[in-house]
């Protein structure tokens, strides 16, 4: 079945440590790929996106993500987390590459940051 999977429901990381959040998708063709962040009680903010081209994309707040076609993955990384990075992170795809198509979201990964 077509889906977006975030294998980790919760991740706890120390402030200053690196962070990697996993995302896998199962679609026949490479979809458009996105990462969103949701702080408590807030809406969804776009961190970064991948449409085509360079497989390493840079986003806001020091985040980056790498698209790996062979693994159907689009993992999010940050070299050094800050306490303000505590939030829930959602991977999302637009399976059929055309304007106006719906986003399909993964289940989310909640990140806790220890002092």
């Amino acid at each position: 079945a077509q889906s977006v999977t975030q294998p980790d429901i919760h991740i706890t990381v120390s402030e200053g440590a690196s962070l990697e959040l996993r995302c896998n998708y199962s679609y026949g063709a490479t979809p458009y790929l996105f990462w969103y962040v949701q702080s408590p009680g807030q809406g969804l903010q776009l961190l970064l996106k991948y449409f085509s081209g360079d497989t390493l994309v840079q986003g806001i707040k020091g985040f980056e993500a790498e698209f790996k076609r062979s693994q159907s993955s689009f993992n999010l990384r940050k070299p050094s987390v800050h306490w303000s990075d505590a939030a829930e992170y959602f991977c999302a795809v637009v399976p059929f590459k055309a304007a106006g198509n719906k986003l399909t979201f993964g289940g989310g990964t909640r990140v806790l940051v220890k002092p």
Partner: protein
Amino acid sequence: EPEVTQTPSHQVTQMGQEVILRCVPISNHLYFYWYRQILGQKVEFLVSFYNNEISEKSEIFDDQFSVERPDGSNFTLKIRSTKLEDSAMYFCASGDNEQFFGPGTRLTVL
């Protein structure tokens, strides 16, 4: 920087009542969307809207739901007769290949 806005931020209603959730998309966007997120669950697509008509809807979006663009700026989601299970955060979004989300309306059905 332009942003999507939503009102109200929180709506409490009695089961069976009608609610209208309002959104103002980013002005030059052509595609508008509603999503919902039940507490603790993933964000789910409800409906997309383009050129004054629904372009796609999910199985969640049954006859109890409707959307409208009553004027040049607002985009509304109406739930005719709310059920307990409609309690969720409702997000409006606008955009083409990239979607920008509003802050959400938390709907509580009692």
